């Protein structure tokens, strides 16, 4: 026979229909029928149970407002969107690749021209044709003679074109000037620089009638001591 303590221990399970064996259920009801206090307790627990069910039913249709899902979907889309890459990151590899390709092309071109014209490899020339400033003015004609910068017989095959329109066989209306260039200036033209030499080099530039440089050749990787205004 069940006592009051045992009854009150299972009363909520009884109301919730939790797994109780048939004998336990029967004992519980038998006790409640014979005990006024436990019968009242059962009524009280039953009322609470009913109230809880009513409360659950009343809230059954409650749900988060649509803005919660909308906000979450927006965040999901943002979270998975690829991060924007700065433009510079796109451009830099292309630019670096272009510079490297130009440098390689230039070296190959220089080697090729040297190889196809034996005995006409560039010879460093210590130019005595110094003038004021840093420009060695040639005799204006690539067909000049002597040791002028326009020693065209030698120079024609050694000039490296700086523009696509440069034609070494047609040097009319051009001027060859001898200049001292810094290595950084050489590099800015896409030309290789000699690491073992000075910071400056002596070079001949073919200047077109419009003043634009058309081609260049290195005369000397070292600036002669006699060069004026040597820096």
């Amino acid at each position, binding site marked *: 026979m069940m006592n009051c303590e045992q009854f009150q*221990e299972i009363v*909520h*399970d009884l109301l*919730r229909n*939790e797994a109780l064996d048939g004998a336990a259920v029967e004992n519980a009801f038998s006790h409640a029928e014979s005990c006024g206090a436990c019968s009242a307790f059962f*009524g*009280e*627990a*039953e*009322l*609470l*149970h*009913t*109230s*809880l*069910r*009513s*409360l*659950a039913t*009343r*809230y059954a*249709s*409650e*749900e*988060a*407002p649509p803005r*919660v*899902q909308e*906000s*979450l*979907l927006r*965040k*999901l*889309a943002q*979270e*998975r969107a690829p991060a924007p890459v700065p433009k510079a990151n796109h451009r830099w590899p292309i630019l670096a690749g272009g510079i490297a390709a130009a440098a390689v092309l230039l070296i190959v071109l220089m080697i090729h021209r040297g190889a196809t014209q034996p005995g006409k490899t560039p010879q460093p020339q210590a130019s005595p044709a110094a003038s004021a400033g840093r420009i060695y003015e040639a005799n204006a004609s690539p067909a000049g003679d002597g040791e002028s910068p326009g020693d065209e017989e030698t120079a024609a095959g050694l000039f490296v074109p700086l523009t696509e329109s440069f034609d070494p066989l047609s040097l009319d209306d051009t001027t060859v000037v001898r200049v001292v260039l810094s290595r950084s200036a050489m590099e800015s033209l896409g030309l290789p620089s000699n690491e073992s030499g000075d910071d400056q080099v002596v070079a001949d530039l073919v200047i077109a009638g419009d003043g634009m440089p058309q081609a260049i050749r290195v005369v000397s990787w070292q600036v002669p001591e006699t060069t004026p205004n040597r820096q």
Partner: protein
Amino acid sequence: MDPTIGPAVPLDDDLLRRIRAGDQEAFGTVYERCQRPIYRFALHMSGRKPVAEDVTQEAFMALIGNNCSFDSSKGTLGAYLFGVARKHLLRHWEKEGLYVSLPAEEEFPAPPARANGNHHQNLIVLPVDLERNERIGRVREAILSLPADYREIVVLCDLQEMSYEETARILDCAVGTVRSRLHRARNLLMQKLRDTNNPRERFAAGERLAGP
């Protein structure tokens, strides 16, 4: 039985993998399945809709971020979301206090409209409805005044109508603990309701209303 609290199935892993890949449909599936129990749990626990809304949002945010620690070997996505919601509720209580009284307009959702389509019918409030509303209101207040451990047991077992096993999985405790805690919680509720005015009359009215 709440469908979110069943045994762990591979489907949860698949859904989560798709959500991590940005699949909005997969997210919608989980949201549709779990948002109501999570929202109602937070609403019953806090007593405030804005808090329930925040907690629901934070719980589902756990699926979106890279810090999701869901492990299907330990339970379902639904149970995981309940766990996250509980943590956020705890943080909320630490910030604002354990008991938040209900603002009057949020105390109860509006009763469902009557089926006959006559809007004026909604204005007629029968004494029986008043009694029932009052009684349910007192139960609601009593639940909110329970210690958090007891409150969440009542909310899960009684208001969400989960079994002891389902509740134990969410709270990560033994079934026996759930059972004994629910019994103590219900006895505490009975004590609180008994302490109100005219308990005999209220219970008598309750017995009439609780008929078949």
